[in-house]
């Protein structure tokens, strides 16, 4: 393949990977605290896309207003889900928590289908960000550059929050032991809610950028990205923000490069995420950056 084609593929991989990264961070946050695969995350992402769509395409709000409202609503949604569907199950067996998450995911998908119909909605165009400019034969959409930058900034902010702030420490404490955390005077509900708020906000940002690049909004649009991004989080080491970003990028690149080098296998593209996942878990059971847990006996 020509150099040009290869570079083009790298660009494709970078922007796709960064999108995965953004969503993966949300998974990692929630999992880190609740040890819960928040299956609904992908659907929160989907709802965020609809919020934006309605804001701009239906209510004709200016984009910046819409973005703020979207993030607000998405946070509200995420926090509500935790409040209603997860909090009551805190001390229930883990699996019923998980099924609850799956249930919420089902509910959101079905509600969306019911309200917005199965038909795709066209996400408003952002010519400024989407009209490509060409360098030689390379075509680059501005958004493809914006995405990685945003991802990086949010990651750094998050890292600071978790490791350097009191809230971050509280989060890590709540992650292991509610009762003792309470004894320290930590209001665990508050901590958990804020975790969900952050996770959802990230989903919202992810959704907005995603739709700029792939401008169709569907009730089921969250399923596959959701799954892949969770995998990204696991690959990187779940609970670890840097890992989520790394995982996202690895996934994005490997998907695109597989298509690039083995065009015959493009049909297997969705499988590659899982293949990588399994390979990595085999050799690094805690993911790439996940810290090794020695069970003390």
């Amino acid at each position: 393949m020509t150099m040009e084609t290869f570079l083009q593929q790298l660009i494709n991989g970078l922007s796709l990977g960064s999108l995965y990264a953004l969503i993966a961070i949300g998974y990692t946050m929630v999992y880190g605290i609740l040890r819960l695969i928040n299956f609904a995350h992908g659907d929160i992402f989907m709802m965020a896309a609809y919020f934006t769509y309605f804001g701009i395409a239906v209510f004709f709000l200016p984009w910046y207003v819409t973005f703020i409202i979207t993030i607000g609503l998405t946070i509200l949604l995420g926090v509500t889900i935790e409040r209603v569907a997860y909090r009551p199950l805190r001390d229930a067996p883990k699996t019923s928590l998980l099924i609850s998450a799956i249930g919420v995911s089902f509910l959101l998908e079905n509600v969306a289908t019911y309200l917005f119909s199965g038909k795709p909605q066209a996400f408003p165009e952002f010519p400024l960000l989407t009209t490509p400019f060409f360098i030689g034969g390379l075509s680059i959409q501005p958004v493809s550059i914006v995405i990685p930058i945003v991802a990086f900034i949010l990651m750094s902010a998050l890292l600071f929050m978790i490791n350097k702030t009191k809230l971050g420490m509280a989060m890590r404490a709540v992650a292991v032991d509610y009762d003792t955390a309470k004894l320290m005077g930590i209001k665990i509900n508050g901590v958990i809610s804020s975790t969900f708020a952050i996770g959802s906000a990230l989903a919202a940002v992810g959704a907005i950028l995603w739709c700029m690049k792939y401008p169709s909004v569907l009730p089921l649009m969250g399923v596959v990205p959701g799954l892949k991004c969770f995998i990204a989080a696991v690959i990187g080491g779940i609970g670890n923000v840097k890992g989520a970003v790394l995982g996202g990028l690895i996934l994005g690149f490997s998907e695109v490069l597989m298509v690039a080098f083995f065009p015959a296998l493009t049909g297997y593209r969705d499988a590659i995420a899982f293949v990588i996942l399994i390979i990595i878990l085999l050799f690094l059971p805690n993911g790439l950056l996940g810290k090794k847990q020695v069970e003390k006996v």
Partner: protein
Amino acid sequence: MNETQNSLGAYLKLHWKTAVFLVVLLIGIGLADIFVDSYMRRLLNLCAIYVIVSLAMNLVNGFTGQFSLGQAGFMAIGAYTVAIFTVPVESRAAIFYLEPMAPFLANIQLPFVVALILGGLASVVVAFFIGSPCLRLRGDYLAIATLGFSEIIRIVFTNTQSITNGALGIKSIPTISSLWWTYGTALLIIIATILLVYSSYGRAFKSIREDEIAAEAMGVGLFKTKMTSFLIGAFFTGIGGGLFAALLGTVDPKQFYFTLTYNFLLIIVLGGMGSISGTIIASFLVTLGQEALRFLDEPMAFGLDLPIFRPGLRMVVFSFLLMIIVLFYRKGLMGTNELTWDFMAQKFQSIKKKLSRKKTSTEGGGK
């Protein structure tokens, strides 16, 4: 000595109950098989298949505590095995009209039973390869890895046209409509599961669920035991898949999307992780429930008159009910309890009244 006699006694007792139970049940099935229309028949068959697959899943997830989400994949294997080997040779050319069937398969046709068992075994083989890496992973990782594998299986089936006919799927599979196939199999599998769970192996499974390190220290080989449970589960699931294919008469990869697994997960949680009877009850509840709520979708065509009733409402309501159950019946209908045999027999007749009666559920299936 004396001990031995007691347990023998208990064992005979168990059998006596089984006998009564079986008679009642068989008569029930017999009557149903004669009287129900093909729509109801289809539903009942589906219930039985769901019982099989859910039980298999509960064995691995509920009893062994290994959170596996591979059901859809194993079903697919079973289903395709049956499809590939039972479709009449003459009609294959017509079905594989885009790309002819691979020569080494094209002319093999097997009796349904053989194909069915072959399907079970096939998924056992795959399960072994999946298990050897994955069962070393813990908790959610296992979940996501098995889920991944079931996706891979689906994607492979989509792309290997000359064997699976890819996206076109395989149609005109000789169908089974009699309830005996599904319920016969389900019955065998239920009994096998009960006997297994209340044996030393069953306790080994549970001990792993409770505390892996302690289990290992007590001489329970983690990998071997997990694998045993996983393979048995895979076998049952494969069988379930085979019946599924024979029931629908057609298979294609889309049917085995990973969300299919969620149905079974829902069932075992609703029924109670680690409760056999719970799983059985839940299988019926869920399968029939989904159907019962169908009316919600109906007047859709006239949305103008009744905007609330639109297609999709049923699934909204259904997933809503699911949430209610998960939130308010954490332990599911049965928790880890079992209905005793005779009680279960009644239950089969009166699935509808179950919810109100579940309090009265008593202890010990065959303990």
